[in-house]
């Protein structure tokens, strides 16, 4: 029995029929083709699938798509605006905050919330704030530096955290992938 | 994994023994039991639906009773296999009469699990087993009381 869910992702409103058991992460990847959100585990430990739901970070493997009725979701694909990287994306680039890049989308989305809540976090606060996101490559040191870089540059009035753009209608539905 | 515990019935040992030996009561007391067929004396083929944390699965296997020492002791052997792995175990049950209206059953068991059930569910297994043990006796107790009342 499929259910209809209507939600906004990166400023575009979608209405789709999904199986109730479909996890949000699978919905984003398989139904909307937004493969920037990654899957790294099946027990909600790794955080690779972190997205923003109504401004709050959420591991998208911990929610069903049907629970997202009316939600505004931002994924990694929706963070850069008009070709301009978000300060956190820029920070990860500047400070070598990634190697293989697999945990990076989730790590960045979690960092967005971290800096939203605390504009000038200490190293300890940063480390605590990204505790739920695993990275196997960097040893986290440069991720911490990346977030610090972003904090500095964001406070200097660089790009603001994006608000959802004016809702658009799903331009061309991608055929759902099983 | 080791499991042990006890359960106190407010009933004489004879009645407790009788209900524990009753195949219908056994069937009703096995959690998630879907199929239960006698294949020999004290031996049954069964299908159980069990959830351990996130691992829910159907297990097909066998349950049997052995080493019966009337009113005192028996052994329950369970083995099952399903998509989420396998589980098998044995439990030793000792009955002690504490008076005309009180019987204590001590149980001590060992269970082995394998596959996803062990990998993913191991941490949840002990509390689940404990709960299943408790539910088993509660169900037996309930049936015992129902029987008593109907009499």
């Amino acid at each position, binding site marked *: 029995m499929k259910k209809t869910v209507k939600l906004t992702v990166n400023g575009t409103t979608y209405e789709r029929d999904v199986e109730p058991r479909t996890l949000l992460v699978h919905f984003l990847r398989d139904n909307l083709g937004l493969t920037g959100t*990654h899957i790294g585990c099946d027990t909600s430990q790794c955080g690779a699938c972190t997205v923003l739901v109504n401004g709050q970070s959420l591991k998208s493997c911990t929610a069903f798509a049907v629970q997202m009725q009316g939600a505004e979701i931002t994924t990694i*694909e929706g963070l850069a605006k008009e070709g301009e990287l978000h300060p956190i994306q820029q920070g990860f680039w500047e400070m070598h905050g990634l190697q293989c*890049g697999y945990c990076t989308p989730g790590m960045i989305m979690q960092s967005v919330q971290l800096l939203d809540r605390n504009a000038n976090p200490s190293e300890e606060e940063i480390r605590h704030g990204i505790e739920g996101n695993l990275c196997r490559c960097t040893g986290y040191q440069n991720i911490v530096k990346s977030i610090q870089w972003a904090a500095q540059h964001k406070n200097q009035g660089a790009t603001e955290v994006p608000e959802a753009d004016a809702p658009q209608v799903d331009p061309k539905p991608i055929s759902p992938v099983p | 994994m080791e499991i042990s515990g006890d359960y106190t019935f407010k009933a004489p040992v004879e009645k407790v023994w009788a209900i524990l030996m009753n195949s219908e009561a056994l069937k009703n007391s096995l959690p998630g039991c879907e199929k239960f067929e006698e294949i020999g004396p004290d031996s049954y083929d069964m299908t159980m639906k069990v959830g351990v944390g996130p691992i829910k699965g159907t297990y097909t296997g066998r349950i049997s009773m052995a080493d019966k020492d009337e009113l005192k002791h028996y052994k329950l052997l369970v083995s099952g296999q399903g998509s989420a792995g*396998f589980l098998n175990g044995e439990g030793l049950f000792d009955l002690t009469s504490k008076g005309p209206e009180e019987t204590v059953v001590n149980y001590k068991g060992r269970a082995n699990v394998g596959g996803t059930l062990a*990998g993913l569910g191991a941490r949840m297994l002990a509390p689940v087993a404990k709960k299943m043990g408790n539910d088993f006796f509660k169900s037996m107790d309930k049936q015992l009381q129902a029987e008593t009342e109907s009499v």
Partner: protein
Amino acid sequence: MLTANPTGYVGSRIKRREDPRLVTGNGNFTDDLTPVGTVYLHMLRSPYAHAKIGSINTAAAKAMPGVLAVFTGEDLKKDLAGPIPGVPYGTVQTVPAYYPIATDKVRFVGNIVAAVVAETRGQARDAAEAIEVQYDVLPVVLDMEKAVKDGSPLLHDEIANNICTEIELGNDVTEAFNTAEVTVEHRFVNQRLVPNALENRVALAEFHQGDESVTLTVTSQNPHILRTLLSGEIGIAEHKIRVVAPDVGGGFGSKIATYAEEVIACIASRKVKKPVKWTETRSESFVATIHGRDNIDYIRMSATKDGKITGLDITAYANMGAYMSLLGPTVPVLCGVIVPGPYAIPNVHFKAICVYTNTTPTDAYRGAGRPEATYMLERTMNMMAEKLGMDPMELRRKNFIQPDQFPYFNIVALNYDSGNYEAAMDKALEIFGYNEMRKTQEEARKNGKYIGIGQSTYVEVCGLGPGSGMTISRGYDCAVVRAELTGKVTVFTGVAPHGQGQETTFAQIVADEFNVPIEDVTIKHGDTEMTPYGMGTYGSRGTAVGGGALMLAIGSVKDKAKKIAAFQMEANEEDIVFEGGKFSVKGASGGKSISFQEVCLKAYIDPKMAPVIEPGLEATRYFEPGNFVYPFGTHLAAVEVDAETGNVKILKYVCVDDCGKQLNPMIVEGQIHGGLTQGIAQALYEEAVYDDNGQLVSGTLMDYALPTAAELPHYTLDHTVTPTTVNPLGVKGIGEAGTIASTPVIVNAVVDALKPLGVKDIQMPLRPEKVWKIIHNGASANGSAGADASVVEQHFGEDNK
């Protein structure tokens, strides 16, 4: 050699060119790809560690909705050209057949027993659940030392005592131990680890009916090797197989081997005539992807009273798991060859006994053998220092190979290229403030606090490998450098980076060498249809070997460019110099010159050159180094052990590493950070735990402790630069150094912290619970030091009394 770099890319902290796509979610990982018509593959795995397969009933599964095919071991065998290969080494009895789907027996939990292809993932999974398998359970063998004893259950009937192979290296140490003034001996357990690259394995196979070829897009560190091996497994000729490794989310060795699922996906795609995708789940990965380490090491060391080490004798039991994975027996070889470390030890004997057990097969995991060697050596150095009453650093200093001794033959197998171990050590001691930290420690002890200092001086062997130094194959890599008509440069490399950043470092080299903006350079990799035969990325070889090939190819392109420039300027080829992006005639004044871009254009279009110079400006070159490279360094750490909780906090971590010339210090540091973290995590957190029945009980990320940001310290890094002449870049490789050095540092530090309690060793990982028990119940609670003394004595017998 690198030329002077007017553009200044090499040596600079150039931001990575990989990153823009990865920070915006535009990466291209295998599971992101879903060609039209893709169907899904799901594996049914054995829940038993050891069992005979009685019968398999697939009828119900086949009848389920969406199911396209079901394979058992026997079904698959018909389409199989050969089993999954392993590379034998030493006294191998025979390589047991490792079929992608088990046929007779299952030998570890996770061994595949059937595979289902269906239209959706859910359907494939549901159908797999409907397959009925009857198992006859067999006794399980997990303990290596028991497995080799007579009468132990056998995994493979044809393999006596479960011994996969024995490997013996070095010289006779009997005399050294007979005449030893001081000896120490110990048994170390180097626990089993799960690599846990954040991206699980994925295989997407597309069989093309038209020409009967197959494209496998896959999470691989070495697509060419995989293609060759795959050909032998699926029976499709190599030139009809294309292996593509797009963005790969980390490997750490776990994506070197060829795996069952890749074979099954290819065969399934051929059968169902559709693209077939298999995506591993994390909990599946825990049992299905190779594990690392899992050694038991008996070690004894002899020395003179004044601290000169005279002998080293090791027996290592190496757990192969249930089958021989590709490099299973190669890992202990890599341990043995480097086991004397940076010390001049005249007598060294190493024996490895590789054992099959009912566990997931093991293979190379970051460091592969060298962490095992460094761990036991550096722990034993501290035990020896303790026995001699010397400071651990002084004992090391006394035994270092001296700079004038290079190239140095280490008795076992290797010729170390270059090194200055004392310089790195002195720098580390100074940055760390070693003497001050000793005073702090003393003060802390008076206040009942447990502070410890740990150390490790290491040398590792990497940059695989010299043509003659490998076991089964030459060791080289390749590069194609193509100067395009418009003056841009495209490079195709045979290495397959997956986080190491060669899209950047290689572009830095090219931009400097041709004096072009880095934006004009593209580095391509990971596609067997695009690059010549390369060995891939592992063993810290990408830059040391792949970079060498790149330098050779650049040189060849330059040579041809000079020929063209000479033609264009009507000069002698020998008189052409290339400087500042321009070709000019040596000694000729008046400034006649031609730019690199003009040469490129002429190379492709100038009709005047037709009779004289072949068109195009491109070269393919292979580089095969004459030796390995030997990075080295000193790592120091201070830890505090919380007596209340047993938790170990790293107060300070200083490392001075020497990887020769650094092309991009930012990337070098990143590699070290990651390496350190994996090594520290082995010391403190990670461990694959099996129960008595061979069930992996640490089989999820809930139970297997990967380190998080909150547990780790801020590392202080520095370096020395001792170049090597082994490769044209003078680089030594840095991917594994951090992992190799860091594990013993932490354990040495914790043991030092708990020295007042009489603690001599603690078996890894040093989890709080274990450490707490030792603090509260005394050193006797320590499983490995106390209980094993007699076992160790028994092992080495009476020879060292």
